[in-house]
């Protein structure tokens, strides 16, 4: 309890901690939302790829002095186009194309950043986040990205749902499923930018899929999956920031560990899907 009191006290006193908390709550919500669709569309690996592929865009934006937001979107979307191009124009499967493209983009980003040592760009912070350095402007950026993502999902809910659940019918009735795919890629790149300072590029995919996967095991309706996923995302972010502050460890990683812990709980104890719950039922039934 002492440490909780100490944390609350610091939260009131220090602006940077407040910013970190607000950023965490927003990032947790948005990642939770978009993550549900990534899981249902079977694109977890794609999410990993896009988040890594944002790095060269961020690097170029830093070097040229324009918004990292624009840089990240450009390289994120270019990479997803490249992946589609390779898998459609060769006999390689999607996962191979993804593995090729994102490591290449990531390596390019690392090279670009290390080329310009001394410009104040810290590779470590981009890769793993630096939540205690979240500025007011960062908060606004996260807010607007979050708003855009939530509004897009809300407006195009029907189209995204149908093209995810039954792509053939979606195309048959004239829903532009390709456009929906690239909209998801675009949103993914944006959310990665929003998550840059909180969890960083390398671990952000965990924030996409862990809360959504946790929720997936607990519910059978998409709206409640979205809601639960956002709640788990926020809980992970808040608890992660708290733990990292108290134990003085990396924030992004501790957020991800909390999210993974929640998933483990759901995996073993979910009322319908939980491994232990199923075993218990079998045992009780005398099998």
């Amino acid at each position, binding site marked *: 309890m002492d440490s909780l009191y100490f944390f609350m006290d610091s939260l009131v006193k220090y602006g940077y901690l407040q910013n970190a908390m607000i950023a965490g709550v927003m990032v947790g919500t948005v990642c939770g939302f978009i993550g549900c669709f990534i899981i249902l569309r079977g694109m977890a690996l794609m999410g990993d790829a896009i988040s890594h592929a944002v790095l060269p865009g961020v690097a170029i934006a830093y070097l040229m002095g324009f918004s990292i937001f624009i840089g990240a979107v450009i390289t994120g979307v270019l990479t997803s186009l490249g992946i589609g191009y390779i898998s459609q124009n060769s006999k390689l499967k999607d996962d191979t194309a993804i593995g090729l493209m994102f490591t290449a983009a990531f390596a390019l980003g690392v090279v670009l950043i290390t080329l310009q040592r001394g410009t104040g760009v810290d590779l470590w912070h981009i890769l793993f986040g630096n939540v205690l350095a979240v500025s007011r402007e960062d908060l606004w950026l996260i807010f607007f990205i979050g708003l855009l993502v939530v509004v897009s999902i809300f407006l195009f809910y029907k*189209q995204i*749902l149908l093209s995810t659940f039954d792509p053939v019918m979606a*195309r048959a*009735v*004239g829903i532009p499923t390709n456009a929906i795919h690239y909209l998801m890629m675009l949103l993914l790149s944006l959310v990665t930018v929003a998550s840059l300072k909180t969890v960083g590029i390398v671990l952000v995919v965990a924030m996409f899929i862990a809360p959504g996967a946790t929720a997936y095991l607990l519910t059978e*309706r*998409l709206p*409640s999956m979205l809601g639960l996923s956002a709640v788990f995302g926020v809980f992970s972010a808040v608890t992660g920031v708290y733990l990292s502050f108290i134990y003085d460890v990396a924030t992004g990683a501790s957020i991800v560990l909390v999210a993974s812990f929640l998933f483990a709980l759901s995996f073993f104890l979910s009322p319908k899907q939980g491994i232990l719950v199923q075993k218990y039922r079998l045992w009780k039934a005398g099998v």
Partner: protein
Amino acid sequence: MGINVRVNNLAVSYNGVKVFENITFSVESGQLVGIIGPNGAGKSTLLKSILGLMSIDRGEVEILDGSISKARRKIAYVPQRNDINLDFPVSVEDVVMMGRFPHLTWWGLPRRKDREVVTESLKEVGMIGYRHRQIGQLSGGQLQRVFLARALAQEAELFFLDEPFAGIDISSETMIMDLLRGLRNQGKSIFVVHHDLNKAETYFDTLVLLKNRLIAFGSREEVFREETLKEAYEGRVSTFAGSDKLMVVNG
């Protein structure tokens, strides 16, 4: 009776391999059309080509006297069970509501009328009691009925069903067939990809027999002849002694 679907000299390939070529036929309204042929004959591909989902090498498809893009809303599609993720977090009612999506604006939410149509459609297929079930909890026949309810809710003119009777119970099959006949009698056209030749003969008004090209097209009498079936199934057809019934061996 207008022409509902006209296919002219259609050729389609997939990943550079020719699936079929030189397919020409037209179907009037109020027809139950069976698309039959051996495995790999191109049945599903033909269905998807008519739906405008394949890039075609040659030829054209006309739907309701126009190109497919104008008719999309009036086309209902029932997928193969294997193509659906049964763990997807949607209820029976959610799936049927998808049939209303083409009637809504891009951002619009379902209204009371849409909900009424969904309820009606679920009653018609006898699945109203399951409306809140997650789709993974249904049997194969029940699932197929739910997808048919989705097609009904769409209030379409053309119906496309991909192997709707694969692995389902006989009572569901009978119910689906009765509903399809009802639609046919209302003047709709229904295309069904089907593999069971024995039933195909009694189920459909018009048959499309495929084997990487159009082997035969027309009424049962025109299509169910020994030489056409032998050609499609490469001789794995035999005649019952003492009857004029044809049977496909190892089809």
